[in-house]
Each structure stands twice: as structure tokens, then as C-alpha cells.
């Protein structure tokens, strides 16, 4: 990790060290909200059984990204953050997953005065500046840094996904949202699976029915409000029965290209995703929503590119 080298450089320069690693340092930040969506299948919200799990008969690959950051030091009160972002694709050959592409970036994020305080920056570390237009607050600066790191990770995911698509026509299942990239959103052989429900598509009784989807059922296909992002079709899918557990247990949001074919194949695509529940990603607390292929990419990224 370049953090260690940066810390050494800082120690040599006499700068004070910092050991804080924010609680969400491995994850991304979501804000809870309801963004009303528009049902595009059948005109009104419904709940449909998708049928028994059915493995995708075609080639499939999984894409995910990961990030890690830590506060290196404070120049006065100005934090300096070191981060690593990485993304990878693992493609299934037969029943085995193999690495099909990966990239990593090391970042050092902070205000210019903090970055300038570094005697030098290692060649493989990118300098990322927080704009001076933002009023200074050490905690807000940290949030800003994390948001910048999030963005860097998403960019890297898109870069890795695009590179994979150039050489393979396999189905590509992405952890997160297709809407972050217009190219992804338009790709008829990509699906995304989001475990996060901070942004919900309905309110009222539709929301209740959405959150109480039975196991192996899906919601109507809807189009989220994507004024800031690329348009996609989405639906909710319950991978595991939730009764006796949490309302969000086993619930994922699936996104696909906004095409008529998606509406035709939504049950088939859902059955593929149901089949991907197994093997269970039991080493992860989010196993109820975490497809094993995505889990495998995360395992790789943690082992090869992050400090766990």
C-alpha cells in the first residue's frame, strides 16, 4: 500500500501521524430518499413470480469495485487522505471464475496546502485536490474526500467494464447501478444488482408491496427518475424469503437496458439471478443480497489490491 510509503515520507518530514480510519472507509455513502419511479410494465405496480432458478446458459462475467482510504495526517487542521480504488471483472469458464481484467489507482486526496506539505508523492500515487471553493471544515473535507474517492472508483469500474466489453460479448453483471454510465445503461447484455435500498422507487402502498415481495418474486419493471444519470429499466427481486427476517432481507434492485426486450425477458433474467444465489456468499454479512460472482470479485480485490 502506498499509505505506508506516504506515512514514511511524512514521518521523515516531521509531520504528525493520524490513525483514524472512518467507519465507512470500505464502503460508499448513500442518502436515504424516495425517488418516485414510473412503472413501464403493465401500467401499474404488480408483483410477479419469476419461476424456478435457472442458470444463464451463456457466458457470464461479474464486475465490482472496491475502495479503501485512511487519514494520513493533518496539516494544521487540514486532513490528508490516502486511498486505493480498484475494479475487476471475473468471467465464468465452465463453472470456474477467472480474472478477466483489473485495474487499481492510488490516490492522495486533500486541499492544496496539505498536498503541498508532502515532500514528494510516489510516482504511482495520483494527487487529487479538494477545491478551495469549498469552505473549509475538517469533517466536511473528509466527506468530500470520500465522495471523490467514490467517484474515482466508479470511473475505474466503468473503465474496466468498457475494456472487458471490447473483447467479450459475455453477459456482464455489475454490482451497483448501470445508470452511472450511458454506455452501460444502453448495453443489452449487462445487468446490475444493487444491494442498497437507500433510494426507493415508490411510496405509499406500492412501497409496502415492493418491500414485501415474496421470495422468488419481482416487482413490475419501472424506470427510475434518472435525470442526473443514464436511463435504465429496473425492478425489485426477492432472492430469499424475508419472512421472519428483515424487510430488506434478500431484496435487490436489478437494472437493465431500457429496451422492449428487457420487458420481454424480465422473468428469464430474474431466474438467472435467482440461480446466482448459490453458492451462498456466506463469508459476507450481506450474503442474502450478494451474488457469489460479485462476492468472488470482492474477494479478489481485497486479496490482491486492498489491505483487506
Amino acid at each position, binding site marked *: 500500500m502506498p499509505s505506508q510509503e506516504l506515512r514514511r515520507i511524512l514521518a521523515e518530514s516531521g509531520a504528525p501521524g493520524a490513525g483514524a480510519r472512518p467507519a465507512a472507509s470500505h464502503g460508499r455513502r448513500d442518502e436515504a430518499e424516495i425517488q418516485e419511479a414510473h412503472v413501464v410494465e403493465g401500467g401499474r405496480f404488480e408483483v410477479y413470480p419469476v419461476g424456478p*432458478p435457472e*442458470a*444463464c446458459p451463456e457466458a*457470464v462475467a461479474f464486475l465490482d469495485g472496491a475502495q479503501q482510504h485512511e487519514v494520513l495526517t493533518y496539516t494544521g487542521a487540514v486532513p490528508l487522505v490516502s486511498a486505493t480504488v480498484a475494479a475487476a471483472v471475473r468471467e*465464468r469458464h465452465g*463453472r*470456474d*471464475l477467472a480474472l478477466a481484467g483489473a485495474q487499481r489507482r492510488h490516490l492522495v486526496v486533500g486541499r492544496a496546502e496539505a498536498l503541498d506539505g508532502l515532500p514528494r508523492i510516489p510516482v504511482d500515487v495520483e494527487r487529487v485536490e479538494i477545491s478551495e471553493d469549498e469552505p473549509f471544515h475538517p469533517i466536511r473535507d473528509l466527506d468530500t474526500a470520500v465522495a471523490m474517492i467514490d467517484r474515482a472508483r466508479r470511473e475505474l469500474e466503468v473503465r474496466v467494464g468498457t475494456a472487458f466489453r471490447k473483447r467479450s460479448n459475455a453477459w456482464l453483471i455489475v454490482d451497483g447501478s448501470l445508470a452511472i454510465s450511458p454506455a452501460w445503461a444502453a448495453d443489452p447484455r449487462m445487468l446490475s444488482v444493487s444491494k442498497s435500498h437507500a433510494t426507493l422507487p415508490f411510496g405509499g402502498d406500492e412501497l409496502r408491496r415492493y418491500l414485501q415481495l415474496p421470495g422468488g418474486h419481482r416487482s413490475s419493471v419501472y424506470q427510475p427518475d434518472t435525470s442526473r444519470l443514464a436511463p435504465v429499466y429496473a425492478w425489485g427481486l426477492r432472492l430469499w424469503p424475508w419472512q421472519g427476517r428483515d424487510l430488506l432481507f434478500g431484496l435487490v434492485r436489478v437494472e437493465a437496458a431500457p429496451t422492449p426486450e428487457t420487458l420481454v425477458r424480465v422473468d428469464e433474467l430474474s431466474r438467472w439471478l435467482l*440461480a*446466482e*444465489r*448459490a*453458492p*451462498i*456468499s*456466506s*463469508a459476507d454479512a450481506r*450474503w442474502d443480497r450478494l451474488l*457469489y*460472482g460479485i*462476492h*468472488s470479485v470482492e*474477494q479478489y480485490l481485497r486479496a490482491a489490491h486492498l489491505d483487506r
Partner: protein
Amino acid sequence: MSAPLAPIGRVFATEQRPSTPHQFLFWTARRTPVGIGAIVRVEAEGRTVFAVVTEGFAWSDLARPIDAVLAADGDPAGGLEPTNRAEMRAYVGAVLRQEPEDPLQPVPLGPVHLATDADVAHALRMDAYTSGDAATGLPVGLYAAGGVEAPVSLDADFLLGPEAAHLNITGVSGLATKTSAVTFLLSSIFQTFPTHKGTVAGLCFNVKGPDLCFLDQPGELQAEDRRIYERLGLTPSPFHPVRYYAPYKADGVNLNTLRTNEALAATTEPLVWGLREVLDYAEVLLNRDDIDAKADAFIDFLADRVVGKEFVDQSLRTAPFRVATFADLEEFFRALFDFVELMGKGGEVWRTHHVATIRKVRNRLGNISTRSKGLVTDDGEVNDLPWGAFADRGMYVVDVAGLDPLAQDLVFARIVSKLREHLERRDLGVDHVAVFVDELNKYAPADGPDTYVRRMLLDLSERGRYLGLVLFAAQQFRSQVHRRVVGNAGTAVYGRMDGDELAAPAYGTLSPATKAKLAALPKGELMIRHPHFTQPIFVRFPRPPVLQGRDGVERFPPAGEVPFPQAVARRLRALDPALAASMVVDLVADRMEDDVRRALHATERARPADTLPYFKACLGRTVPREVRGGRRTVPGVATRDDPYA
């Protein structure tokens, strides 16, 4: 030294499973040529480590077993998961050698390679003794793993002495492994034992069936066997010369062996001992309760003063005794008992020996010729191994399979003792003798009585290497053999093992995977411990270059037991195949069997150029039967006044 092959694994170490100077872990791809018994090389900066794989593990990322059930919806026959779980294959490497050897350090993290030919030689320290002018390597088999094949050799100095010696082989019966392995190894020794180390011969006790009865006949080999021989630099040829010895059956003419086919008779000799040969080993045949100090003293008296000497005791009889045979001994005892009976009260003791002790010794010794009939003769004829004339690379087989167990003990004890005596005096004819004994657990059991044979084996295993007397012993259950006997075997060989045997504490140093491999070891594979190998090594060996026992019996069916005259004819035809059996049968008709036997044994010992005339001469002139006239009787007295006449 090593070809630049791609690594097949990498060393890893954790706090829970650290690397040590003797053991380490490495992971491999899921599909790997590595298996239990494979030799690998770890390359790290400034250090090279050679190791043999002794254990394997596989992990998946399944955190809880229930998750596998849930994923399959509780149905084992349910559809396959679309993706295989991530799995880790890890192996334990047991260190064979490190370079540098000093300072000895934990195995470093580094890439792991499969061993090459040269690596195998280096890892097993064979480079020290398989090359150069004074090489002492004896090929024992091929190490084969991961597509790599390399000859493995034992060090003659550590197999036949003087540094270490003896070989012990264990394995379940019926897989033809123990006998085949020893036979192959003896063949290898005879071909490769270096001349600068002296001469060597083999002596095998055939203790069951036809196992070792055809060592002089070529066996059937398959192409793979021939390839292994070529790879080891050996020639697959039967032993030569081979001399077979077997006692007679109770009739004193038919040999007590399965090697009685006429085609093989010329190289099969009778093993016949007399009183002198037996008396020195009386203790073998008499149990400890029989041989108290008093009986021992009387036996010593007989051996020192009576047997084989002219013994004079005017109180017994005026003519001196010349006791050379059991019959002579019986005559001596009869005279002695006549004397003490004559003495009556006060005659219970003769020359400080109590009459009860004398009677006990007489009874026991008298039984010997009965219990060992065929081996021990009453008449003093002896035919023994060629003491003093053992041939270099010569194989001597003594077939005791048909003998009473006690007689087997006698044969075993006397022959090994004689070997020892001659090797001590350096007049055996060879410098080293490898003695092969099967069923060692019978002769040197871990538990059981402290017999003469067991004490002799202990002595042999502890001191034989200085003499060049080397024990190649086999048994089904090593754990049932006396610890000092197996412990003194410098080289230990294991074939397929019984699970219960492997559970014995003696195998505690083997890993569970090594035990599992041993329990399923295929025919033709062995695990070897040798002083130069710091870990056991698995090797493959070819079929021995000789006819296997069962095949031999089919190709050379034993001649059936025939009546006395025909049996005599068969024995003589073994000396002279041109001899007409009918002539011999006619010749011995109406002759006393004892006379015929004596003449036959004399002829066999002399092996004359003209067999029949010599036999005739030994048989002597026929004494014509005398037909006596009718008894002359006194005629009755006739009287006229006999009222009943």
C-alpha cells in the same frame, strides 16, 4: 542443477501455521500434478529447500455447512450451482534437505517447483554415493510423481554394512509385494554391488509355498517392467548360480519341497543333518522348561565327551563308545540305563548327573529325530550348505516350507549361526551375506517366549553389520516384531498396509495422508525409509526377473510322491538324466530301504561321473536269502498200550 520449470505452488505461512525448518505449507492451483509423495523444491533468495509432500488440504469459502444445504434447497440432487466455490489447495512439505544446511532456518516464502531428476538425487543425498569411483548406490526403484521420474538408490554402506545394515519390509499378504520387492532388490544388489566393497551372496529361507522356489528361472516381464529396469540401469535376468536345499520327507527319499519337477532336480539338493549338527542347537528344539541347568550340563557333557569321540567307561561296557549318530546315542543311553538299573539303590547318579536328568535328556533328544524326520537322520549321513565355498553373487535357498515349526527353528538357528561363525573367521567364501527371512513376527515376536531364535535374531540385528551378515526380513505386521530387531534395520520398506496396523503407535510419525496412501498402495509401489532420506519416499519397482512362485508351480509342476523305488530312481536321474528308471527300480527291489537310502545319500554327496555303478557299489552285494530246511523234530513215542492211539 534444475531445469527452469514454472512454479507449481507458493509457500505461505501464517501465525497459526508457520513455516519451520522441517515443515512448511504451500498452495497450488486446483489442477496440479502435486500429490502425496511428490518431491518439490522451494527457491528463495539465498536458500533452496527440498521437501516431500506428506499431507494435503482443501478449503472453500463456505463459512457454515448449513449454507451449502440452503443453497441447494436441501436437495443434494438439485441442480448444480452455476459457479464453483473458490477453493484452496494446500500441501505440507516435509523438508528433505536445505541448502545451505547451516544455519538451519525456517523454510522461506518462495515459489515451489516440482523436483527434477537432479533435484531428487540431491534431495535424497544420493549425489554423495551414486557417482564417482567409489560409488555405492544400489538402485531400489523409480521415484515417479507429477510426470517426473527419477531412479532412487540405496547406499550399500548403509544397507549391507558397515555404517548401518539390514532391511525390514512390511505389508499385507497376498499382493506379492514383500517377496517380489526383496527378490528385485537382491537382483539389483547382485548387479550393482561395487567390487571395491567385496563379494556378496544371498541366502533365502523359503518358509511358505513356492515363493522362492524358482529364483533361477526367468519370469514373464511386461514392457513397463523392462522400461523400469532400463531406467535403473539393470538387466532383468534370473539369479545365477542358485543352489536349492530341502530336507527329505519322512521316507528319506522324496524331497520335502515344491521344487521337485525333474527339470529342476539337478539344482535341488537334500538338506540332511546328523547328531553332531543338531546337538549344538539342542536348545532350539527344547523349550526353556526342558533345559534347566542340570540338563544343560548333561547335554554339554555329551557334546564335549561323548558325541564324535571315543568314549570309554568300563562300568558301562568294555568296548569304547563311538557315538556319531542318533542310533549310536541310543545305544549309549541303553548301556547307561542298564548300568544304573544294575546298581539299584545308590545308582541314581552317574558321573554327578541324576538319572532323571539323563532320562529327560534322552527322551528329548530321541524325539528330535522323530520330529525332524527327513532333516535329521539316525544314520549320520550329512548334506549341508557349502560352508567355506559360498560363491560371489550366489543365491542359496533353503526350503523349510514343509517342515515342522520347531525343525524350521533348528534350520534357521543353525544356518545363521554357521554364517556368523564363518564370517567372523572370514572363511565363508564371500564378504557379505544377505539373509532373507519371511514371517519375522513368528521368529522374533514383540511378545512371547524368549527363544533361542529370537535372541539370535536380536544379536544378528545388533551386531551383524560388522560381520557383513545382513538380515532382510519381512512380515505382515511390523508392530508385532521385536522393537530392537526392526529398530536396527537401517532400511525400512513398506508395501500396502493394513489399516489396523497403521493405527499402531509405531506409525505415529506418518501423516494421515501418507497412511491413507499406504493403505491403498498399488502393487509394485513401496515406501522406503533409508538413513540418507530424512523422510519416507515412495518408489515404483518392476516385477522381479524371476519366475513367481505360483507361475513356477504351473510351469514346473511338482512331481507327485511316488513309491520308494521310483523315488530313488528319480533322485538318481537328477544326477544322471540318461539313467533308466526301470534299472534302478529293479536294482533296489528286495533291498532293505535303509541300505538303499544310505547308498542314495552317499551317491548324492559324491555326485560321481558314473552314477549307477557308484550307487551299486554303495549298495553292496545282494545277500541271497537263505531258505532254511524244515525243522527237524523228534518223532513221538508210539506205545501199543496207549489207550488213545
